């Protein structure tokens, strides 16, 4: 399933604010997305998932700043480059054509005063100026059909569509330029469960057909286990564990991942008790020392409070395919 890397996030740091007042919302994040892969990103709300997604596309509004790192994009046609080094024009060209995003607040993602068709075709106008108006329209129609919306809704305004339909429009819009990477930030939280699964099922099917990669963000780990290839878990702005979806589900190494898994009922297989995680997410302004999870961790022990655990491959049998940042699983250094 997975091929070469398409997007590599290296040591990414994102702050809100400058200087002393800066809040470090994403710290030293390293992640690699491979061609054709669905990478899930999970974590409690406030753990920095959205900040990471917006940071790597440089869409964060002030006071957000990227305080370090690289986002290496391997373009199939234009070589390899650092997205963080692009100028405004380069960034505009990169956006949507290479990486499209479906936003968390999909309900408000559509401009209320323009027709759906206008909002679908203006992307084409910006990125493929040579395309005729007729062709643009045909393309937009085709995208709507792809996501299961009747073509006669082209002339509808956003307020005339239901939440699920708006969500589909956004997914269709994200795919209109056939990007290599689609980032979905809690794309379905506002929808009911049936609708969620239906839309996600469609998306995965489309992915198989069109061959793009997906970064899928949610606080609902159950969705990820079902729909993604690999899962990264975020806590307090850091990635604390990354593993193939099945491995993570069967055998999570980080106590926080275990806690997250315990927060929702098992989909299949044996029932387990719903435990949740006691305590509340850390305050970014006063991060705990050492492992930032240690005040809530059921397995906290000696080194945890003072030393930050490093994300790296653990010494488990499947260690080469996963990483974890926990003193219970010291990193094997090659």
């Amino acid at each position: 399933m997975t091929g070469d890397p398409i997007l590599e996030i290296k040591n990414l740091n994102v702050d809100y604010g400058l200087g002393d007042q800066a809040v470090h919302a994403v710290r030293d994040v390293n992640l690699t997305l491979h061609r054709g892969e669905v990478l899930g990103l999970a974590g409690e709300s406030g753990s920095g998932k959205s900040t990471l997604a917006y940071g790597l596309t440089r869409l964060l509004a002030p006071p957000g700043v990227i305080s370090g790192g690289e986002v290496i994009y391997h373009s199939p046609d234009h070589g390899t480059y650092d997205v963080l080094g692009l100028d405004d024009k380069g960034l505009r060209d990169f956006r949507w054509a290479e990486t499209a995003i479906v936003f968390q607040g999909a309900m408000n993602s559509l401009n209320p005063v323009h027709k759906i068709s206008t909002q679908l075709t203006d992307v084409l106008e910006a990125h493929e100026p040579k395309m005729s108006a007729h062709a643009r329209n045909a393309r937009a129609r085709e995208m709507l059909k792809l996501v299961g919306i009747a073509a006669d809704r082209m002339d509808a305004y956003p307020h005339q569509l239901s939440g699920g339909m708006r969500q589909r429009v956004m997914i269709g819009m994200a795919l209109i330029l056939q990007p290599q990477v689609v980032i979905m930030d809690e794309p379905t939280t506002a929808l009911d469960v049936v609708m969620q699964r239906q839309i996600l099922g469609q998306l995965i099917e489309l992915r198989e057909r069109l061959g793009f990669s997906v970064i899928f963000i949610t606080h609902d780990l159950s969705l990820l286990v079902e729909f993604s290839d690999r899962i990264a878990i975020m806590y307090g702005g850091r990635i604390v564990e990354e593993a193939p979806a099945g491995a993570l589900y069967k055998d999570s190494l980080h106590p926080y991942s275990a806690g997250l898994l315990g927060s929702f009922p098992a989909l299949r297989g044996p029932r387990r008790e719903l435990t949740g995680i006691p305590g509340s997410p850390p305050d970014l302004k006063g991060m705990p020392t050492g492992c930032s999870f240690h005040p809530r961790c059921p397995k906290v022990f000696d080194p945890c409070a003072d030393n930050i655990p490093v994300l790296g491959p653990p010494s488990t049998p499947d260690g080469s395919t996963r990483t974890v940042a926990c003193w219970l699983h010291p990193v094997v250094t090659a």
Partner: protein
Amino acid sequence: MTIPTSSVEQVIPGQGAMAQPDPARPAKAKRQRFRFIANKKAFTGVVVLGLYILFAIIGPWVAPYDPDARSEDLVQPPSGAHWLGTTHLGQDVLSQILDGTRTVMVVGLAAGAMATILSVLIGVTAGYLGGGWDDSLSALSNVFLVIPALPLIIIVTAAAPSGGAVLVALIIGFTSWAWNARVLRAQTLSLRRRDYIEASRANGEKTWRIILFEILPNLTAIIASGFVGTVIFAVTSEITLAFIGIGADSGWNWGTILFWAQSQQALAQGAWWWFVPAGLAIAFLGTALSLINFGIDEFVSPRLRSAGKTKVKTASGRTVRMRVGFTPVLSNSSAPHTHAKPIPAVTTAAATPVLKKEGSQ
């Protein structure tokens, strides 16, 4: 007249969600109330307003002359004896301005207070009670809003038997509450839907207690901003009335000075000292009040703040303005940057990072 421009006042029903104060406010409000003064604009405004209030109190006493007293020095430019010159009757302009400050401030503040009380009563009632109350009170405010205020004030004051400052204040107050009532209604409506208010209601808390202790404290900033805005309007209206000769018999105010300056050909005589100081007095008072309101606005919706560092140095060494849609990449980044340089394909294993922080083995 002043166009109400406060963003707080831009809350239009149906779009109210955009300008609502932070839901986390109730808890924080107290602590932040003091920080409002720390706002540079608000501070300047408060200081200047304080000066005006001071002169409203001591003005008539410190005035060098009796503002009505005539002298031989007709239409004299500013001099040591008459700092701001004299009128066609040889009256001292400075004394007239100082004497007029009291009337202006009293009418402005009284009208502002009256309009504010009316707007709170009507706006909060409409927003909280809803239903038929809301419909009729909203219609009432809208009627008062679209009927042009100044012409209405003019015909009412002209019809009233020779008024005096109090009557002018009453009339202005009675005709200028509508805008604030509208804003307050919208805010109350959104507050009422908040969980903690719903909870109080479910607990059978008395309506007046909820309004007094849960709703009103959260409306403080808006009420204050409405009050300040109405004072601006009242001062301008009052001076305008005096300028066209209504209420001119009720003592000096800056409008009366302008009335005489205009009718006695101050312009044609080049007697700038006759009308410039009064106008500046109005302008500075108005600016001070507007500054206070900007302060309140920025306090309620921090987004509007233009202060603070907006320029940052980027990785490429240029200085850019922080703006929506193009997050800056800071120059002090820890990792070396390889700008758009082709990079050899990296394997997953090689990409596995090792943190450089204190915890790494």
